[in-house]
């Protein structure tokens, strides 16, 4: 009994558990990636996952992008007015959206919507023996369930972010022209004037990484679910929390790599 409350033993157990999970995650990722280079492939599953991650996430990502663009224009105007720098609104909005807010906010929204659903679906399959059933039916569960979702995540999220970038700029344009009286063509010209290809590309590369992370966390925590409904619930929470933290952490790492080297 005393060992349970021994802080050193607790630290040791936690460290071993963490390293074990990291090891499992490494093997899981390797097995899923192996499915990309060796058949069988499951195009129907890729299509379904692409629809789930991409098409059905479009409304929530679009609304997030529009409102973010609108708020950004509003905040920038009121802040920059103190320095008579209102003309920089267009550049600030488009650079903030393409480099940072588009990929991060879309990633967080998709992590909440799709990562949780993946963990719940695969977790339920685990606790109802459906994953074991796949194995008995000559099907590798990781290649069948995980590889298509990873691939769909990597493809769908950049497309979502591209749409989010456009809609975010549209939201900013709306506020700048209707609320602050900017001329539409001038605003859009300023938007494009300071926008470089790398600004958009870096956001799209970030979002591809985030798409991979969201799908990986959803699948991984779902796949190792145990213990019925409670286990599936815990897996869902873990998937969303892990994906969200990884998105924010990787965002810093990738930003550092893109813009400071």
């Amino acid at each position: 009994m005393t060992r349970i409350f021994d802080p050193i033993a607790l630290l040791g157990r936690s460290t071993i558990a963490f390293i074990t999970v990291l090891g499992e995650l490494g093997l899981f990722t390797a097995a899923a990636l192996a499915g990309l280079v060796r058949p069988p492939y499951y195009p129907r599953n890729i299509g379904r996952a692409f629809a789930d991650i991409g098409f059905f996430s479009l409304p929530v990502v679009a609304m997030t992008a529009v409102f973010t663009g609108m708020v950004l224009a509003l905040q920038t105007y009121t802040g920059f007015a103190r320095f008579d720098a209102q003309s920089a609104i267009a550049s600030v909005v488009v650079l903030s959206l393409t480099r940072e807010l588009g990929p991060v906010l879309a990633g967080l929204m998709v992590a909440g919507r799709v990562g949780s659903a993946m963990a719940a679906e695969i977790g339920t399959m685990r606790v109802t023996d459906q994953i074991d059933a796949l194995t008995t039916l000559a099907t590798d569960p990781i290649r069948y369930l995980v590889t298509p979702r990873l691939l769909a995540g990597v493809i769908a999220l950049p497309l979502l972010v591209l749409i989010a970038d456009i809609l975010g700029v549209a939201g900013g344009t709306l506020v700048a022209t209707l609320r602050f009286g900017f001329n539409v063509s001038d605003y859009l010209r300023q938007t494009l004037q300071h926008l470089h290809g790398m600004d958009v590309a870096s956001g799209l590369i970030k979002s591809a990484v985030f798409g991979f992370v969201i799908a990986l966390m959803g699948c991984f925590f779902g796949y190792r679910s145990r213990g019925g409904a409670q286990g599936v619930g815990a897996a869902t929470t873990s998937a969303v929390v892990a994906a969200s933290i990884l998105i924010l952490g990787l965002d810093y790492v990738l930003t550092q790599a893109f813009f400071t080297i």
Partner: protein
Amino acid sequence: MTQNSAKISIQGLSKSFGSKKVLDGLDLEIATGTSLVVIGGSGTGKSVLLKCILGLIEPDAGRILIDGEDVLTAPPERARALRDQIGMLFQNGALFDSESVWENVTFGLLARKRISRTDARARAISVLAQVGLTEQVADLSPAELSGGMQKRVALARAIAADPAILFFDEPTTGLDPIMGAVIDGLIVDCVKRLGSTSIAITHDMASAARIGDAIAMLFDGKIIWQGPPTAVMASGNEFVDQFTHGRRDGPIQMALRR
């Protein structure tokens, strides 16, 4: 392969989860074309036994021979080929929610590329007929079926590839007595028609008597008794007698208290 040779032979099979020893040097032989029912209380390792044979759980020690070849030491491709002979009916059906009934039934055939997708639906309807289901259920989702129908679809999926070996995990769990008897009848028909070797695990004695050519009792990680269904209710073994008659007091309870 003669009729009486062992299709499946299990030797010294052991499996522990943490400090709990579930299988402890278990030995078991199932002759070709026979149906063995393994009985035993909840948590005695019946499902673990099947999962070890299927390769879903890795045993700690022992040998699992199918057609005389050890699937635990065979090269992966060979082990896969040996295990491909097995059709499995899971306790709760384990039907895939995202697939229709006919896609569930022919899932294994499509995965093994033994059939084209265009022929699969017709094949599924033919197999569904063997378990008493009509064409109307083929395009439904598993969630739209009753428990008994789901069990039939799961049975159809298990037999669709004409497997040489069939496993049944608690085939009558969750069903009313009449539907349980219907499922048992279908199982016996399918096993006979295919000439399969089968292992069923259950703690439903009526079901065990209907399905099995032989009954074995698993207790404390080992097979403690094996005999014909006619002998099981008067086996002379105090563990088996307590279990089959459902007595509260006896050596099994004493063992649990130990």
